[in-house]
């Protein structure tokens, strides 16, 4: 059973268990769990927190409001074959921003093993401001960055550390943060990312330009973009074993 969990002027989001679908008009960033409808219904017509929703068959229905879904996409990152130097050059094109202590800890933990990663993630989840707290955005970015770069440069199961920590991170996330964030984190753990983040990751591994993708990623949400970029940069650096 889907329920409407929240509305903003740019979209509303529905949840069924861990699964979340963001219903947006075409202005919002292409999140991995979003669908686009031609026009958002007036915010008053969708009751937050209570309304039951039906999603499927190309439609979203909430009470008497029904929208045709006109667009969704495949958010899966596919590893490419990339040389280490290419990624290093790419990372240098992302201006470094100072990392907080817990953020640095998570970067360090990615070299140490799954238990350390889970602990470090625990120090970030739910922390900070925003619909998706900054800490969550950083974690989402670092997981996306680490996965894609590790597998693209080293190949095989180079991102096994992420897979091993997956269930523990999710258990913790369900306690520490909201369902929208949990959903985005779950997608990141499976290699699903928002479209601008995907473009940034591809650019880091040699497909496309860093500059425009960086600008698009920074523009996500109110403050999410900056935390995502910090995370992506730290994740890519961790995958290469260099300091962010």
């Amino acid at each position, binding site marked *: 059973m889907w329920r409407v969990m929240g509305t903003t002027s740019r979209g509303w989001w529905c949840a069924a268990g861990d699964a979340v679908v963001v219903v947006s*008009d*075409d202005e919002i960033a*292409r999140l991995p769990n979003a669908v*686009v*409808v*031609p026009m958002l219904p007036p915010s008053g017509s969708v009751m937050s927190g209570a309304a039951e929703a039906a999603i499927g068959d190309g439609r979203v229905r909430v009470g008497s409001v029904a929208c045709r879904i*006109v*667009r969704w*996409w495949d958010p899966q990152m596919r590893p490419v074959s990339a040389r280490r130097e290419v990624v290093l050059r790419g990372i240098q094109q992302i201006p470094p921003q100072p990392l907080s202590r817990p953020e640095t800890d998570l970067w360090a933990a990615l070299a140490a093993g799954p238990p350390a990663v889970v602990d470090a993630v625990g120090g970030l989840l739910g922390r900070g401001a925003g619909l998706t707290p900054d800490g969550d955005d950083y974690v989402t970015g670092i997981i996306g960055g680490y996965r894609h770069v590790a597998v693209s440069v080293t190949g095989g199961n180079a991102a096994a550390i992420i897979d091993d920590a997956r269930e523990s991170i999710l258990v913790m996330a369900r306690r520490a943060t909201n369902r929208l964030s949990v959903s985005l984190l779950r997608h990141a753990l499976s290699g699903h990312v928002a*479209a601008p983040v*995907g*473009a940034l990751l*591809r650019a880091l591994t*040699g*497909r*496309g*330009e860093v500059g425009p993708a960086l600008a698009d990623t920074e523009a996500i949400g109110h403050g999410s973009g900056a935390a995502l970029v910090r995370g992506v940069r730290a994740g890519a650096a961790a995958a290469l074993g260099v300091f962010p």
Partner: protein
Amino acid sequence: MTDLNALLDVEPVVATAGVELLAEAIRAQGARVTHTDWRPPPSGTEGALAELALEGRRAEGNAEALHRMLVTSPHLVDIVTARDVIPALADGRLLHAGPPIGWDDCSGPLRGALIGAVLYEGMADTPEEASTLAASMALSPCHHHGAVGPMAGVVSPSMPLAVVHDAAGDGVAYATLNEGLGKVLRYGAFDAEVVERLRWMEHVLAPTLRRAIRRRGPIDLQTLIAQALQMGDDGHNRNRAATSLFLRQIGAMLIDDDTPGEDRSDTYRFIDGNDHFMLNLVMAAAKLSVDAASGVAGASLVTAMARNGTEFGIRLSGTGDRWFTAPAPVVDGLFLGSYTAADANPDIGDSAITETVGLGGFAMAASPAIVGFVGGSAAGAVRRTMEMYEITLAEHPSFRIPILEDRGTPTGIDATLVVRTGVVPHINTGIAGKEPGTGMVGAGLVEAPLECFVTAVQALAATAEL
């Protein structure tokens, strides 16, 4: 890694031209699309436009011409006498604005100015004698002699000319000195007051200014104009800021001189009292820049727009010195005093040279103080400037518009873009009275006639190497 891979990795951002339904269909999918306001070009131009799209030299030629234009560095270096630098004046010839014209086709203000020049040179005593004499004299466009003049643009042998030199090359361009508003020669007035002022300019203004400039050293006009745009000038119809900046540049030199104090204070007062003093110098700077861009094979860049009061003419870089003309349009504007549109002469003057380098109508967004000339609003001025980006090849590296986040002004008109879009250059200009001797009757905005761009593009296409 090719661009094609990049296309397939991301959701496309689409630009559509043609059937609007197809843009709607993309929008209905929640995808990003811009529908362009495409209009068919004038019939009969399809072939020429296609040939120019095939012309391999066009893109490179335009890049080359644009580069030559933008690297020029016009500096005011001297004031000289016309006969000393323009040999053609020696054989009894007079120069005028716009494309070539004979006396029979001259409009009232141009005739008036020619009569005034003959009186000023002392070749006749009465307007009637002067008229007879002027009608028999050879005429030649200023543009053919490296010079430009506002409105009638008449240059006679004794007139002082400002010399603008290219500090980054060896180009040079000349312009007359601006007489001020009201009854002046460039608007076709020729009474005693007009001739008297011209003589004062020759005998007092020119030598005083010459000394000041020579002592001061070359004045960087490009920087001065760029600063003036930041202060609300458009570089064509509003030169109040530029004139003030100019006075600051030479003020000390005027004070610190050993010539009669009255000459120096009169010179200062004359320039201070004439908000348009800098117009002629801006025009010479523009002329210098576009001349550098002339004669690049295949280039569709516009290197001159000029009017002689009867015809409006343009030149393209790729067709060199050829003129392409159409009847000069009548200016839509506001009139001084009780003058009306019935008193207005068709468009006249070389001053549209400013628009060819991204000033005037192209820089209107920088000059909200003059938007009323089009009976419009500040928003309208911004829109006009924005529209000019549709027909230009570049944004000017120095001339910037504060309100558009310091975007460079639209610069380098591409004649093929004009024909393709039907968007014609907007020109800010003054309006001359059509009766000789009337002077200025108003100011306003005029649109360059599309016809001359059509014939120019067809002529350029005939030179295409396919």
